Structures are given as structure tokens and as C-alpha cells.
């Protein structure tokens, strides 16, 4: 039903997405809306053939804001060109995968079969990507990730039609390891939830951190009470702590770390997802002093980033997260390839050659694709600070890594 809704008129490409866009109205109501909106907009539509972009993303569940931001960043790039990317009219069709691999697969099938979409983006979570990406690639479609980048598609499993505009999972934690190393921490305690991504986080961190790891603590997945861990950290007296807990767990961890009085004596290092503007907003003053690493931050001085932040604020009335910047960058990279190929997505080899040039100005500045078509870019230290006006913000510090790819790139043979 909703695919007809989307194909009948380019609602999502021309309208600001409503926060509740994924709540499906009844059948009659849908057609009534389609009729009303198309009637009003048809005259204004460009005549050229549109390239459809399927955006399978996570909009619901507590992690839904990640997908919302990626989508809104992507939309902003389209809006800046008034419904085009790289001069080619595009139509963005967004669906919510609900963070369920099976739901993502269903949407992919529908997009491929019924909507004949050849170009995809949107995936946020590795587990959904693991289910959806093989289907897309088997159908010879192109996928440009605004976030998800698990290791299984980065090394031996790399693919000519698979691009990542965000960062490879391991490199996120490796960057934090490099920061901890450069800050001279000799003894560290590392914490992560007891599941694959948690173990990857700690292993990724250790690829660049060469000091001594006093203890690795694996917590229960989704736990929100860390009193026992705080007591252990106090007992172990490390130079610094690195922790990766996604979403609400991470918010709870930083609050409790500060409340336990540990933050004042033992620096806390986290990866980007542990400290972006939304997390900062939820943690508040307890976050001041926490150190992270990121490939992008809201205070970047380059003109693309400045314009993006301004555009995002004025359109959506909130601060963009790095996920929003990644969505925007993904759209920009796609735009460059569309421009070079005149919007011919069907010729995947030509499109790929154009994509690989990454001939686009991105919010993070320095960027190119490595041999596994994942980013080679820079990482920066980002700290939560309290301004003289009492406002909290994320401040970019030193550059931690330059032209950094990921550890899987060399395993990729294409």
C-alpha cells in the first residue's frame, strides 16, 4: 500500500517529512491524501525522469532517532537542490525497518520488485544490513550506507556495488584507541556489553591502544544500572576508562560515572555514538569532560559543514548529529555520481566508477574511498564542554588520525 503511496507522487522528496511519516493512515485516508497532495503538486513537478532512491532505515524503536537524522540529512541535500541530486531529479522513498532484519528484507524485496528501485541507502544497524544488503547486491542494485558498516562487507565480503559513506565499525573504536594512546594513558579499563558489537568495540580499541588493559568488563546487554561496575573501576584505579554502550545504556553509564565521582579523577573515553548532540542533551552536565572521537562534529569550520548545520537547524529546528551529517554526505556522494552518469543508475559499472571518484564536497572535509569502498578520512577528538553562557556543547579538539581507513580494506579484492 505505502509503495503506491510513494510512487503515485513524490511526496517524500518534495515535502518535509512529518515526524509521524511512518504511521500509516487507513487505505481511504491514504488515497485521499495522495489525491490532495498530488493534485496540488503535479503542476510543479519536473518533467525529467526521476531516479528513485530506496531508503530503508530505522525510524521506530528507541534508536529511531538515528534513522530519522540520517533521513533528514539526506533530505536536506535533496531540498538544497530543489528535488535533485547532482542536477538529476530524485525521489526518496523511505520505509521503517523497525530494527528488524526480516522487516528490512521485506521492504527491500518490495522496493526491488514492485518499485524497480536500483539505488539504495538508509540502513543504520549492522544486523539489518547483514540481512538486507545481500538481497540488494544479488539484484545488482547499488547501496550507499549512511551508517551501517559491519566487518563482513568490509574485507573478503566486499562488493563492487556496496559503498559506505559513514565509517567502518571497527575504525570507530580504533580511533578512540588512538586517542587514548596519544593522551598517554598507561592503564585502562574497557567496558562493553556482552555481545558481538561489544567485543568488536573492545578489540577495535585495542588495535590502536598499546598501553596495558587492566581489565575488560563485559556488561549485560541493555543493562542500565552500573553501580557494581563503578565500584570495580574505583578499586582498579586505572588512568582512564573506555566504554561503549549504545543508546540508553550509554546515557545511564555516563550519568552514573559522574554521580559516583569517578569522572573528576579518571577520564572517560567513548566512541562517537556515546557522545553526540542527542546523548549530550539527555546526559546534561554529567557529560562535561567526557572525551570522544568523531569523523564529524557540529563546530567544523569548513563551509560545507557550516552550511549543512545552518540548513539543518533552520529546516528541522534541532541540532544535527553525526548521523545526519552522514546522511547528507551519502546524498552528496550519490549526487556526484548521478551528475557524472546523467542519472543512469542501470549501468552499475559506470555509476561505480563515478562514485569511486567521490567528487563531492562533504561535511567532514577530507574524504576518499579506500579499496573496499569504505571511507578513508580523518578522526578528531571531541569533548563535552560547558560554555561561559552555561550552555553545553561538543567541541572539536586535535586531529587524532589522518587519512585513516579500516583494518579490513587490504583483505578486499575486487
Amino acid at each position: 500500500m505505502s509503495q503506491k503511496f510513494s510512487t503515485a507522487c513524490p511526496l517524500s522528496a518534495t515535502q518535509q517529512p512529518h515526524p509521524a511519516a511512518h504511521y500509516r493512515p487507513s487505505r481511504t485516508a491514504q488515497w485521499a491524501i495522495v489525491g490532495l497532495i498530488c493534485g496540488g503538486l503535479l503542476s510543479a513537478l519536473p518533467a525529467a525522469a526521476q531516479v528513485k532512491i530506496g531508503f530503508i532505515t530505522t525510524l521506530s524503536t528507541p534508536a529511531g532517532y538515528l534513522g530519522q537524522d540520517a533521513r533528514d540529512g539526506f533530505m536536506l541535500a535533496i531540498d538544497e537542490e530543489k528535488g535533485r541530486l547532482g542536477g538529476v531529479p530524485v525521489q526518496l522513498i523511505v520505509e521503517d525497518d523497525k530494527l528488524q532484519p526480516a522487516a528490512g528484507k521485506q521492504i527491500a524485496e518490495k522496493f526491488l520488485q514492485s518499485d524497480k528501485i536500483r539505488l539504495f541507502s538508509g540502513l543504520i544497524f549492522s544486523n539489518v544490513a547483514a540481512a538486507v544488503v545481500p538481497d540488494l547486491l544479488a539484484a545488482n542494485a547499488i547501496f550507499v550506507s549512511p551508517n551501517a558498516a559491519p566487518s563482513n562487507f568490509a574485507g573478503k565480503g566486499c562488493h563492487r556495488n556496496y559503498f559506505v559513506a559513514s565509517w567502518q565499525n571497527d575504525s570507530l573504536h580504533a580511533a578512540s584507541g588512538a586517542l587514548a594512546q596519544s593522551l598517554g594513558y598507561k592503564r585502562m579499563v574497557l567496558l562493553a556489553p556482552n555481545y558481538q558489537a561489544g567485543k568488536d568495540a573492545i578489540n577495535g580499541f585495542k588495535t590502536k591502544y598499546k598501553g596495558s588493559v587492566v581489565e575488560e568488563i563485559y556488561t549485560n546487554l541493555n543493562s542500565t544500572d552500573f553501580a557494581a561496575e563503578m565500584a570495580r573501576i574505583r578499586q582498579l584505579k586505572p588512568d582512564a576508562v573506555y566504554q561503549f554502550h549504545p543508546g540508553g545504556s550509554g546515557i545511564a553509564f555516563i550519568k552514573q560515572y559522574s554521580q559516583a565521582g569517578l569522572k573528576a579523577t579518571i577520564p572517560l573515553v567513548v566512541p562517537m555514538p556515546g557522545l553526540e548532540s542527542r546523548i549530550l542533551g539527555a546526559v546534561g552536565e554529567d557529560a562535561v569532560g567526557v572525551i570522544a572521537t568523531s569523523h564529524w562534529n557540529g563546530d567544523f569550520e569548513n563551509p560545507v559543514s557550516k552550511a549543512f548545520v545552518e540548513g539543518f537547524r533552520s529546516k528541522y529546528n534541532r541540532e544535527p548529529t553525526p548521523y545526519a551529517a552522514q546522511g547528507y554526505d551519502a546524498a552528496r556522494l550519490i549526487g556526484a555520481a548521478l551528475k557524472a552518469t546523467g542519472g543512469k543508475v542501470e549501468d552499475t559499472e559506470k555509476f561505480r566508477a563515478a562514485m569511486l571518484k567521490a567528487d563531492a564536497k562533504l561535511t567532514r572535509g577530507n574524504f576518499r574511498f579506500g579499496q573496499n569502498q569504505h571511507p578513508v578520512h580523518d578522526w578528531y577528538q571531541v569533548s563535552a564542554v560547558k560554555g561561559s553562557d552555561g550552555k553545553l556543547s561538543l567541541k572539536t579538539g586535535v586531529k587524532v588520525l589522518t587519512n585513516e581507513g579500516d583494518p579490513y580494506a587490504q583483505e578486499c579484492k575486487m
Partner: protein
Amino acid sequence: MSIELLIEQSVNGLQLGLTLYLLAAGLTLIFGVMGILNLAHGSMYMVGAYAAAAIAAKTGSFVAATAGGAAAAGLFGLLVEFVIVRRLYHREHLDQVLATFGVILFTNEAIAMLFGRSPLFMPTPQWAAGQIEIFPGVPYPQYRIFVMAAGIVIAVLLWQLITRSRLGMQIRAGATHRDMVGALGVNIARLYTVVFGVGALLCGVAGALIGPVRSVQIGMGEDVLILTFVVVVIGGIGSLKGAFAGAMVVGIIDTLSRAVAGPAIKAWIGGPTGDSLAAGLSSIMVYLVMALVLVIRPTGLFPATGNRVSHAGH
């Protein structure tokens, strides 16, 4: 492990137990008195936390936030009882589970529409932001001590209400001799509404108190729901004394297995296997204890006596 650390971890366990009690008390009353299996109990907790966070952001007052959170959750509970739960008293547990599961989904989406999907900020009150030395060399967060104190006060008040007041007598009688209470002229429907409202109110208090420590976000209720059910099952369904004992058992076992058993296993086995085993064991420990309790005392540690389940299928 030093004795100080052991004491600190035990205090952590008590503190976790007291917060669990606030949730379990309502759940056990609702199930014990009304025979309603209420999966939406966690939603009341979330409503309380969101209302408290919103009020704290507007007024900056922690007291107003807690009172508002409790009131909002209580009112939401009354609404849910009036609109949905009231129709379920004579239905099977499966129907109750389905309907209250629906309430979870509804509440989550309603909160997302009202507040968005970003987690909300809930500040620690200024007067409890620091630490106190509970033992030489063991600083403890003031706010957690405050939460413990609040938990104890509420537990005592609730105990007084149940054992000393007329309403409490009716509730106790309702849990054990439902038909007789009705026959004696007590308005059972009103009693049920009150019990449901009180249960939701307690959830709201818990949500408001926990806000500054954890994350105020959609789905926060489901995270605590399972542990709350474990508490109720260990303690004995329908019994406040049982809920208190169960909460303490779960709080202390969960904390000590993370703090003591985990590191011991790691030291013993070592390597990645030790890490996984330590983490795995500490996460299943409370469930093992629950299974053990069910084997030894199938009705829980302090079961409510009487014909609690005899009404099913009226």
C-alpha cells in the same frame, strides 16, 4: 576483594532491590488482588519518568517533578483501568496479556509523538549531586542514598496502608477471599480501580526517582518489566512482603554476581572464555535463583494465602 568493596557492592544491591520493590509492589498487588496480568506496568513507569523529566525541565524543581511524575502515572493508570483493564477481569490471562501488550505499543508510540524519540534529560537535584563516604575510602553517590531512603519510606508507608487501614484490609481480603469481600458489600469494582491506580502511582514514583540515574527513553519500561516479574515470582504473587523479599534477593544477587562471581570466574578461567562465562553467568544468575525458588517453593517465598486464582473463568 576487600571488605569495603564487599560492603559497597552490598549497598548497591540493596539500592537496586529498593527500586525494584517500587515496581514489584504495584505489579504484585494488581495481579494478586485483581488477577490481572498487567504487561503495561512498565509503561506506567515510563509515563512517570517522562512526566517528571518534562516538569523538571519546565520548573527545575525535583519535588514538583517527582510529585508530577507520580500523579501522571497514577492518572494514566486510572485511565487504562477505566478504558481497557476493566473489560478484562473475567477474561483469560491470554486476553489480558494481549490487551496490556497493546497498551505498551500504544504508550510507546504516543510518547514518541509527544516527546520525539530522543532520550530526555532529567537532572540530578543539586542537593544530591555529590558523594558521601559510607565507609572510610568508599564514597557513595548521595542521590543513590536518597533513592534508598525514599524506597524505605515508601515501603513502610505502603506496609502501614495495607496492614493498618480499612482500605488495606479490603485489599488484603480481596487478594485472598475475593468472592466473600464482594458478598460483604465492598464495592469490588472501585477497589480494583484504586489498586490499579496505586500500582501505577508507585511506578510513577519509581520512574521519577530513577530518571536522574538512568535514561528516560521510550521502551525503558520493558527493560525493567522482566526483572520485576522475576521479583514477583520469587516473592510470591500477591504478597507485598514477598515482593520486598524478592526485590532484595534479586537486587543483591544481581549486583554481587556482577561484582564478585564475575571477577572470580575470570580469575579462575581467564582469557576470552572467562570473560564470556563471567558475563553470561552474571546475567542468568537471577533466573537461576528464580528457578531454584520455584522448585523448592513453587508459590514463592511468601505466598499470599487463600483462593487467589479461584476466580479465573467467572
